[in-house]
Structure formats: C-alpha cells, structure tokens
C-alpha cells in the first residue's frame, strides 16, 4: 500500500456531504486535497437526514446557493458516476390554516426574485394534483423542480469521485488538533500528521471545538433528527411533502421512494451527544409523529413502521450555517452548522467553497453566513 499523502494544498476536516463535495470540486480545480473523517464518510447528519432536495421555505438569502446546488443535483450522476437516486419530483408544502396563505404568498413573491418558481394551489387544485392529502389541507405551495435523493449514497458518491480524481479520503481517522505552524496548518491525527497551507473545517456538529481553538467560538448544538420508514406500499406519494406552519408540533415531512417505502421525519429533534457515534431515535416521539403523518396522508393508517433512526446534526442558534473564510486566520475556512437543512445545499456548498479557496472569491453570495456575525471580526486579511 502506498504511503498516505501527508501534505496537500488543502486538508478538509470532516467527510460529510460538504467535505466530500468540496474535495471533489477542489480536484476539478486542480488542487490537491486530503479529507480526514473520524468514522466513515457521510455517516452522521449527511447520511441520516431525510434526503430533501428542497429550496422552497429556505431562508431567502440562501436561495442563490440553493439554486447553484440544484443545478449540480441535476448533473450529479454525470459528475460522480453514481446513481444517488436523485428524483426531481417536486416539493409541496400543505397548509392547515388560512393565516399561512399570506405567509406562503409573500414567500412565493420574494422567492421569484431569486428565480425560484412556486405555485400556490387552492383546496381543489391540491386534491386533484395530490389525491393522497388529508381533508384538513386548505392549500399548498408547490415547487415543481425540487425533489429528493438518498442521503446514504450521496456523500460516499462524492468521496469515491473525489478519490477517483486524485483526492485522498482517510476514514476512521480522528483529528486531535489543528494548529497553525508558520505558514502551514498542522493537523494531528491518531494516524499521524498532515500539513497544508489551507484547512477547511467541515466537521458538522463537532466543528465548534475546532473554531473555538482558533479563537472563534460559535453557538452550535448537537441535535438528532427523528426519522422513520414504513414497509413498502404502492407508489402513491410522488412529490416530497411538507407543511407550512408556525407551530413546531405540526412540522412533518415525508417522501416515498419508488420501491414503496415512505420515509418521514419531523415534529421535534431528539437529543444527540458529541461523545457518541450514534444518536438514538426516541420511541416516545412516535405518537406525535404518526399523528402528523396521518394528517398529511390518512391512508398510511394501514401501514407499518419498520425502522427508525437518528444521527448527529449541528444546529446554530440562528439556524444559519457558518460558511466562508475564517477572516481571522489566513488559510482557514469554515463550512458547518447547516442546522438540519444542509443536504440540498451540500453539493453547492462544496462548489462554492472550492471556488473560494481556489480563487479567493465566490460568484454566489455567502456573506450572510460569515462567522464574524458572532463577533471576533476578521483582521488577518485576504482569504485564499
């Protein structure tokens, strides 16, 4: 076996969807890259999330990034050489109450200025288009070009493609410390040291400890999505389905794969610990989830749940990710804290971060996500 590459243009800490896609796009730009992953690539938030490739409902300033990502999703098979089960089947959010109509209408108008096409459908239109929906739904917001994909496959697909293109992906490699030594970063791991002039922290829920070590603490908490899947049923829910609501207990989302299984999540997050490799599904939450699932698709009352799972996701206090150059330490970059909605943007984040690292600028605005919003503004000059 060849000696592992110990030096590269870029070392990425964390092999989730962000780390793996950044590595892939850095190789496209000709930079050498090493990804260090504590367990297996895409094992945590990237692999255990719902699989939503959804733009509607996002924080508006994130839409340019989501649009860029959506464009990559459309080419993901050709880029990675893998079928990640991406299905642009559309995304619909149902409304339970009249008050939400103004909210989704306002969102539709604003989103249109970002190029996101949404349609507000009335009571009859949703029943015609989505005959599965329960009687409580009064309207829907339809995003025809969103969809879903299999999260278990996506990060490994980017990792394989990056490796094929010359990246070094090191799994089961615990990063112990990241320090700046002269012009270089020294990344110490249980399997030896790595050096690079550029380091990107893409360690999800585990990232706060690393940013804090560079004097940039952030309010990041671990949380576990509560996910379940039914036995296979006839394929009757074609779009990804969600709810537009201001009530946390009503937040539910589901999708069906052509194989027939209905995957769902929502209502509330479970606890997750940075000390554990796995977060566990909370069986007490099952009743509240089932109630909301049945509001969306009452015919699921005949179905059975066959599996539940959770994972470790990193949530920022403001639910907005940290993304961009450190601004404080030259050569240091961050991309983490995607707060439970980083799957759709993942490939776009990888593309943008690779662009930023390679060129020093990005064609997609990401300023709103800069770590300086938590204070400790940057003073160490130019990124890249």
């Amino acid at each position, binding site marked *: 076996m060849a000696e592992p590459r110990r030096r590269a243009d870029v070392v990425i800490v964390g092999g989730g969807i962000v780390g793996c896609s950044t590595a892939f796009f850095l190789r496209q730009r000709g930079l050498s890259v090493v990804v260090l992953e504590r367990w297996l690539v895409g094992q945590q938030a990237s692999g255990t999330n719902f699989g939503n490739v959804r733009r509607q409902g996002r924080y508006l300033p994130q839409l340019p990034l989501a649009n860029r990502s959506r464009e990559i999703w459309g080419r993901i098979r050709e880029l990675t050489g*893998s079928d990640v089960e991406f299905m642009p089947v559309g995304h619909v959010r149902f409304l339970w109450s009249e008050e939400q109509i103004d909210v989704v209408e306002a969102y539709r108008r604003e989103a249109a200025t970002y190029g996101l096409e949404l349609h507000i459908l009335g009571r009859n239109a949703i029943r015609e288009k989505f005959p599965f929906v329960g009687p409580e739904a009064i309207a829907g917001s339809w995003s025809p070009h969103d969809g879903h994909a299999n999260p278990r*496959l996506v990060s490994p697909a980017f990792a394989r493609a990056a490796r094929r293109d010359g990246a070094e992906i090191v799994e089961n490699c615990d990063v112990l410390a990241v320090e700046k030594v002269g012009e270089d970063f020294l990344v110490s791991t249980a399997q030896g040291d790595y050096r690079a002039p550029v380091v990107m922290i893409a360690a999800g829920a585990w990232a706060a400890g690393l940013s804090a070590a560079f004097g940039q603490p952030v309010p990041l908490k671990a949380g576990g999505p509560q996910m379940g899947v039914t036995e296979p049923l006839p394929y009757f829910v074609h779009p990804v389905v969600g709810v537009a609501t201001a009530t946390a207990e009503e937040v539910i989302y589901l999708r069906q794969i052509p*194989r027939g299984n209905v995957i769902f999540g929502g209502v509330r997050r479970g606890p997750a610990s940075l000390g554990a490799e796995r977060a*566990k599904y909370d069986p007490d939450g*099952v009743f509240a989830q089932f109630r909301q699932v049945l509001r969306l698709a009452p015919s699921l009352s005949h179905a059975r749940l*066959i599996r539940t799972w959770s994972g470790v996701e990193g949530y920022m206090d403001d639910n907005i990710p940290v993304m961009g150059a450190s601004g404080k330490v030259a050569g240091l970059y961050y991309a983490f804290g995607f707060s439970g909605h980083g799957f759709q943007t993942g490939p776009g984040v990888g593309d943008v971060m690779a662009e930023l690292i390679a060129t020093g600028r990005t064609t997609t605005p990401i300023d709103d996500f800069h770590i300086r919003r938590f204070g400790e503004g940057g003073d160490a000059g130019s990124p890249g």
Partner: protein
Amino acid sequence: MADPRIIIVGAGPAGTRAAEVLVAAGLRPTVVDEGSRSGGQIYRRPPPNFTRSHDALYGTEAAKARAVHAAFDALGDRITYRPETLAWAIKDDRLHALKGSRSEALAYDALLLAPGATDRVMPLPGWTRPGCYSLGAAQIALKAQGCAIGERVVFLGTGPLLYLVAYQYMRAGHAPAAVLDTSSYGQQLSGLALMAARPGQLLKGVRLLRALRRGGVPVLRNVEPLEVLGDAHGVDGVRFRDADGSERRLACTAVGMGYHLRAESQLADLAGCEFRFDPAVQQWLPQTDAMGRSSRANVYLAGDGARLLGADAAETAGRLAACAMLADLGHRQDARTVARLQRAMKRHARFAEGVARAFPWPHALAAELPDATLVCRCEAITAGELRASVTALGAPEVNRAKAFSRVGMGRCQGRFCGLASQEIVAAACKGRVEAAGRLRGQAPVKPLPIALLGEDGRG
C-alpha cells in the same frame, strides 16, 4: 428498594423459570410475551381447543414441556402477565410494549431479556419459492396448526432441530422424503466427546437417528445444497451435491430449511448491551457474566437470545439471571443453589460446544452463493448486488453494505438475512466475518402500526 419494577421479556423456558424464582422471593414481575400462551417456541402451546396431548406434541420433551407450562400456570396472578405483547423498543430504562394497536412505555428497575431464538437460515437459489419453510415454521405448523408443510418434504440444513423436526413429521404420519445434512459424519463424531457432557440428551439424539433409519427416512450427510427446484407456484425438488461430489436431484413438494439457531438479540442491542463475537456459533451475542448480567447494570439476559445453549439451559439461565437480579436488589441468595445452577450451565455450555462442532454453520456456502441468489427477500436484493456494495462501492463493513444495498432494511430488519449477508460481505472484503462488523439494531424490533394508540387511547 421497595417494590422494584421488574420486567421479563419472554415466557419460554427462561422467562418462566426466572419469573418463578422472583415470585418465590416475594416479587411481582411483569412478563411481556409475544405469544398468546406461555411456552415460547420450543414448548409452544397449541390453541386451547386443540386436543393433541403433550406426548404427541413434544415427543421426548413432553415431560419438560408439561413442567414448564405447569410452572408458568402456577404463577397465576402473582405476576403481571402481558401476552400477545411485542417489546418493540427500549430507551432510558423504559420498555415500549405494543398490544394490538396500543403502545405503552413500561418503566423498569430491572429488565430480564429472554426473547429466545429464530431459525438460522442460509439463502439458496430457489429458497423463496412457495413451499420453502424454515425448520421452526415446519414445526409450528405441526404443533400449533396440526398440519404438515407438504406431502413430500425434504429437510435441509444442519443441527439437532433438523433431525427432531424430521422425526416429529414421521411420527405425525408424514415421513420426510429425506434429511439432507450439510455437516459430515466426521464433524458429527468430533462433537461427540463434548456432547457427552449430557449423556441423556446425546442418547436421545442417537435414538432419534435410529428411529428415522427404521422409519426408512434417508439421511444424507456432507451434502452441498445447490437449488430448490420448481416455479413461482411451488417446489418440485431439490438439487444438491452429495458426499461423493455427485450432483443429484430429489423430488419433493416442500422444503424445511435451517442451520441451527440465531439469537434474537435486538432488544439487548437497543438496551445498549455490549456484544462479542462467539466463534463457536459464528454469531455476535450480547455479553454476559456467568450469572446472566449484561454490560448494562440493570439488564439481565437468559436463554437462547443470549447464548445458544438450548431449552434446558434456558431454564437454568432463567433461574440464574433471576438470582443475579435478586442479589443485586439486595436479597440474600443461597450460595449452594447458585453454585449448582452454574455447574449445570457449564455442562450445557460444553454440550452446546459439541453441537456447534457437530453441526457447524456452513459459512463458506454463503460466500459461494451465485450472484443471482436472492439474499434479502424483504427488499429483493441479490448476493451479487450485496457483493457490489463492497467491491464497486467500497463498503468496508456490514452496516455500510446495508446502507448501500438495502440488504437488511426491509420488514425483517435483517433478522433472517443478516447472518448470511455478514458472511457474504466478509467474503467480499476478503476478511473474517467478525471483522466485517455487526448489523446495528434499530427500533421497532418488528413492524409497528402507524395507526398507533398511546396509553390514553389516543392516536
């Protein structure tokens, strides 16, 4: 501790004997069991209106079955008995129990898991045709429904149950077409010395074989099963290689298959118990001490769900685990009783080691399965697709292979395909099966209705 809340999962031989010991100590355990009557799988009781006697149902084991049933019935209302109840999850010292469509969380101070075992099955080309059953299912058909799985049955696999079920079928008037055992005569001889730890059991086995021979049932050893023949409507034969290496066909209308047992260990997994790989039986099993204490302070394990030692050992293990629980709850234990039970466990363990040696899990067969063979019948995934998750996609262990291929993600959650799929993954990784890791358990243990009601009766 005043009135400790104790839950026993399983009302087979282990759960019954544990409940008996706890009740004798003045405690009132809750017994959660999936069955509608006690007895577990081995001493499964027929519905109340069935008239076949213990002797007809359990043959040589009738006296034991009768004793275990009587012991459970004698507990009466000194236990809280929850039959037809599925323990589907465990978290934070609470057991989630489903009865019908209602689920409630039962808090416990101490939990004894005695969930038993299932058949260990090995995929085979054609094994999903109608007319293929596991050995256990073939036995249940006879015990609980009073019917055979077919007119002309071949029993295929290895292990004591292979012969026992064949014998029971013969006794019930359905002499099998043949018994095809993957173990060789030499392997069976090599287990003899260890099995002599329980001469009575060994003798029963020898008698059983003799009865099959007298009954004219052909017994072939050292066979390599190749295919279950037939079409989408049923089975019409089996194809196999005999001990001489010649390919042969045998006509039949049903096949009963099994390779000894597989521990039902998901509840222990959900409770957070640590596991170890047992090389004798080639399975990951939850760790226990000599008393049945798991790695979790208040979780105890007994019976075939913890160690595959058989029904008699399950009775002993149930008693021992109850003793351990009582000791941990501050009750005085009679040291001589405990020592006697532990000595018995050693004999059982020695015997079981002999059984494992005599009837080994033919793991190489899994590694050699043709690519087109269905491995995961829930998700319809073939051996080739599973192998590709390792060779083409780079899965280094079983959980990643599952994530890529969906083997073990269906209704059975890997309870049936898991062991064979681990062998296939390990072979594709060119490593040992223990190095390929252990499939993680996830709730629910068995499918849970979405139209679920809570304790308050609300959905």
